[in-house]
């Protein structure tokens, strides 16, 4: 694994330039460019806010903010996994013709989405700052949370991109799985709404804990027990699951990588 990291480091410029390409290509030729990436979460936020505060009247204070704090990190995961799934297959011309560490392809997708995520958070700061949230009090926690979530995202993306080479219908499955994951994470609802007998399962989902942290930092502005969750044990379990996913993803990828060129 260390030699893998060393090789990866020597190819860092390729990683950065592919990340840059990813971002450039995404917004090339559109007038609003980067702002389109903000439009998507804003529209989602508006729709859900309408449904939950006006139609269903869930009674959650400032539902828009409540939602967006958890929606943005989840989008980072789901966009990375959805786009990353095709990263090896979609670059068959490269994989077939040139040697470089293959993990650069999914990693560049994750990095591009991470940068997107940063910009979205910056936009969020402006909005909640104007609305008077003291988001800066626990801001020092944010890099830590993002850091650990990053490993989860990388692990999932590596796993999916490698398996997709061998099982092409995974691509379709992923969209469904990500939808289930979305509703299985307290994003449009608070954890307290979940019946106690199901809470255990919801808490095993690492995104539940990460979302709670984002929400504690931005929405509740309380730490450590914004909404009485997560506890230290729950956090540690999440970190454990995160690293299991990361290592499984990494080793599956490494194991399959030598057969990529033959399969696509």
């Amino acid at each position, binding site marked *: 694994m260390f030699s893998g990291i060393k090789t990866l480091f020597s190819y860092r*410029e390729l990683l950065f*330039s592919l990340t840059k390409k990813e971002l450039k*290509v995404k917004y090339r030729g559109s007038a609003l460019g980067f702002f389109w990436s903000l439009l998507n979460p804003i529209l989602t936020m508006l729709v859900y806010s309408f449904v939950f505060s006006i139609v269903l009247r869930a009674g959650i204070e400032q539902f828009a903010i409540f939602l967006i704090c958890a929606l943005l990190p989840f989008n980072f995961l789901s966009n990375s996994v959805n786009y990353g799934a095709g990263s090896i297959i979609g670059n068959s*011309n490269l994989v*077939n013709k*040139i*040697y*470089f560490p293959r993990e650069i392809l999914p990693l560049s997708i994750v990095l591009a989405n991470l940068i997107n995520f940063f910009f979205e958070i910056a936009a969020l700061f402006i909005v909640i700052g104007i609305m008077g949230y003291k988001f800066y009090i626990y801001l020092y926690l944010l890099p830590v949370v993002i850091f650990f979530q990053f490993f989860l995202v990388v692990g999932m993306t590596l796993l999916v991109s490698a398996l997709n080479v061998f*099982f*092409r219908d995974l691509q379709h499955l992923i969209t469904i799985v990500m939808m289930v994951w979305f509703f299985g994470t307290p994003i449009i609802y608070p954890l307290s709404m979940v019946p106690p007998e199901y809470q255990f399962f919801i808490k095993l989902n690492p995104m539940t804990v990460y979302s709670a942290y984002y929400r504690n930092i931005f929405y509740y502005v309380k730490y450590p027990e914004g909404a009485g969750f997560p506890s230290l044990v729950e956090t540690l379990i999440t970190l454990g699951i995160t690293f299991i996913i990361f290592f499984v993803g990494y080793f599956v990828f490494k194991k399959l990588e030598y057969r990529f060129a033959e399969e696509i």
Partner: protein
Amino acid sequence: MKEKNLSYREKRMKGSDNDTAVEVKSVSKRYRIYHEKVPSLKQTILTLRRTTYEEFSALRDISFSVKHGETCGIIGPNGSGKSTLLKLMARIIRPTSGKIIINGPLSALLELGAGFHPDLTGRENIYINAAILGMRKKDVDRKLDDIIEFSELERFIDTPVKNYSSGMYMRLGFSVAVNVNPDILLIDEVLAVGDQSFQSKCYKVIYDFMKNGKTIIIVSHDLDTISDLCSKVIFLKDGEIIDMGKPLDMVSKYRAYVEELEKKRIIQQQRAERKKIFKTVIDSNRKVVDGEEISRLSNLSIDGETISRFGSGDAEIVSMGLFEKSGRKIDYCRYGDEVKLTYNVLFKNKVEEPVFGIRITDYRGNIIYGTNTRLKKIGTGTFNKGDETAVIFSFKINLVGGEYSVSPAVGYNDNKTYCDWVNDMFTINVIHRNIAEGLADLDPEISIER
């Protein structure tokens, strides 16, 4: 980069063990060919294993090494495993067994402009492509002007590459690739880029690479290029090394192989055509053979798919031979020899004024020469049942080296129907003495005037 070069050259001069740039040790590569394209997840879960597959052996027990500074060519027919071998050396795929040792930075030009994104400009693609090929950004910054100048695309460098012609695309790809400056360069059939002037530029770059002591391994079908550039050539066929050695030897070996193949193909084709003609003859029982009408047919003997003999059977050609002027029977002859080509005919019925003839063809089926007694205006008289006769054609062998087939025939004097026609009954072997080439000996007198 430069320092590394130096160190390799120094090592080379010292004659240390790092003399070898690329070492391939008994490498085999087997591919799996799945009977169904890509198995779906459903299938895998249901059957708990992959769909059935066959193993295809692309390379078998390949061993060779290339020294630093050598230019090594790989030639062979399609499907011989050349590209697989390059991909193995480029680390794109892994050998099934065996080992490949690479000493020094390696760059593979298996495809030009790999990874160009159509929506990005030429300039942006230079950076990405260079990074993919393992070049540092600061090196690209330094060499950017060279790359653009070499590609001759100054005017279009800020245009998205989707608007490029395929030639421009390849030129940009090549310009980036040659500026990567590796120690070991693998090239796959990419020299055919752009117009004549750009091509000569490319060759110059490759010669410069060679002069700078770089190691080059090149796969090409262009044998002239190979024998021009390389110091060593590997001849690959069906996944095995047939031979390796000096370029000219290998190239002529490969040419001989290709010619042999071509010969076989032509013979096959010839056979098929003859079969078609004779089939028409059989079908209608009275049709055309090589443009000549036949009304009486019997005694059709079929050799494989070729009809080798036909005619009424009123006369039968029993034997044929080649003789020296003195009468001694010979197996072969030389250019310029005086020979007698003789065949014996046994008459089964009375035939008046039969026509005796021969036709000489080369291996491609080209008719080299044909004549008969009627064309030569020689009267033959009447033959009765039981008569035997020898027909003798005396001539000088004005044929260049090779094998020639002789078809003798006895025809009726209507010049349309035959008593007996035997295809390719006899072979004349002419020993090659580099007298001439081609079909006809025009025997020119050559003078040089100043």
